[in-house]
């Protein structure tokens, strides 16, 4: 299983692996927002937390179809299914690899982009913390969506349509936590809810993803 994790990370970071694409997309979204809403510092400061969350969510979405599609096309998934690794573990490890190569860099980039959006100083910690807590859920939910659409030829758009509604609770609690942090309010409740959602998805969705993968490999 560690072998699978290492392989996925290695594949993502080699040339052509798409590592950094999500990060670049995140940067571009954040840069485009001021062009859309105007350059007023107060306005940007107010919406900064939300923009960072939406940007991270979209950047995460961008690379989801790679989680299983490449392995499905070249036959690796068939071979993994007959290997002595449970499918549940494959799904969980692949989601983890996705988070390490996409989610974690986004979290690390968020403070830098926060400067561009004049994020208030007291907001940095809550924004980073909320992204750190929430992005694993985004990767796991995304892995489930990717598993659902893996056998489809044009699964990309469908994948977004399936995954985005599932992202709603994570986004609400994550962005709420970040926003309350920016306003200097107590963030305990949304933080606990966000952590709960993340733990719940990590505990349960690998089983759903594995079931779906088995169906798709038939």
């Amino acid at each position, binding site marked *: 299983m560690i072998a699978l994790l290492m392989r996925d990370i290695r594949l993502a970071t080699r040339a052509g692996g798409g590592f950094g694409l999500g990060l670049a997309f995140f940067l571009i979204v954040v840069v485009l927002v001021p062009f859309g809403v105007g350059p007023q510092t107060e306005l940007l400061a107010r919406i900064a937390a939300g923009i960072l969350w939406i940007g991270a969510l979209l950047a995460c979405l961008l690379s989801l179809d790679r989680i299983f599609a490449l392995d499905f096309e070249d036959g690796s998934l068939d071979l993994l299914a007959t290997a002595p690794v449970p499918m549940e573990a494959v799904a969980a490890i692949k989601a983890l690899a996705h988070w390490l190569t996409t989610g974690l860099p986004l979290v690390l980039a968020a403070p830098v982009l926060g400067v561009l959006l004049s994020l208030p100083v007291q907001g940095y910690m809550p924004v980073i913390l909320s992204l750190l807590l929430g992005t694993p859920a985004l990767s796991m939910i995304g892995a*489930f969506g990717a598993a*659902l*659409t893996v*056998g*489809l030829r044009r*699964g990309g758009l*469908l994948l977004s*349509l*399936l995954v*985005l*509604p*599932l992202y*709603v*609770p994570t986004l*609400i*609690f994550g962005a*709420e936590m970040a926003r309350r942090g920016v306003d200097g309010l107590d963030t305990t*409740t*949304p933080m606990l*809810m966000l952590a709960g*959602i993340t733990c719940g998805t990590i505990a349960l*969705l690998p089983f*759903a993803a594995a*079931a*779906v993968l088995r*169906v*798709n490999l*038939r």
Partner: protein
Amino acid sequence: MSSIWVYANPKKFIDTTDRFLPALAVMSVSCLVVGLVWGFFFTPDDFRQGSTVKIIYLHVPAALMAINAWLMMLVASIIWIVRRHHVSARAARAAAPVGVVMTLIALATGALWGQPMWGTWWAWDPRLTSFLILFLFYLGYIALWEAIEDADTAADLTSILCLVGSVFALLSRYAVNFWNQGLHQGASLSLDKEENVADVFYFPLLVCIAGFVLLFIALVFLRTQTEIRARRMRALMARDRMEA
């Protein structure tokens, strides 16, 4: 008394529902006509909301059925996963478009009602937002059905999506409540008598709800029959290909 699962046989299902369908159709149409005419023309205007209140005869039943249709799909999906009855998978597929139309009716009538009452067509109120999210879940579910060619694969995948989606829909409901306290009035119907709308509005509303429920059942029966026949036709064509 034979078990309920005999109706899981497609032929038995079609035969039985064929017998009930005309009666169901007549009953649902008469309930709707009586309920709507009674509600629209023979109830007084509300002292605060005027005649706009009468839209509840469409709004409330549609909203109710939008949620119940999803619940029915959830039950049918679980039956498919556990017992693998084809009728169940077909019924889940048949119910989805009906459910999405109900959701749209609820959203549209809500907007029409909201304009005079709240002065806005749309507000990011928890109930409204939840329905919008429910609408998105329906869209995803239907899109997945449409995207997969093999019928059994599609049934497997959509039923798992329905299960997972139900959990997330429920989560969204609570998340949205937390996110914004709303301006939507309390439940129009509840078991707690104090909170109910006044009796003059209540009885025609019940008739309308009965009409919507019957209409839903009739439509699902009809659409399930169509789905079963389409599935059988595909199976027959596959058999022909095999013989060739």
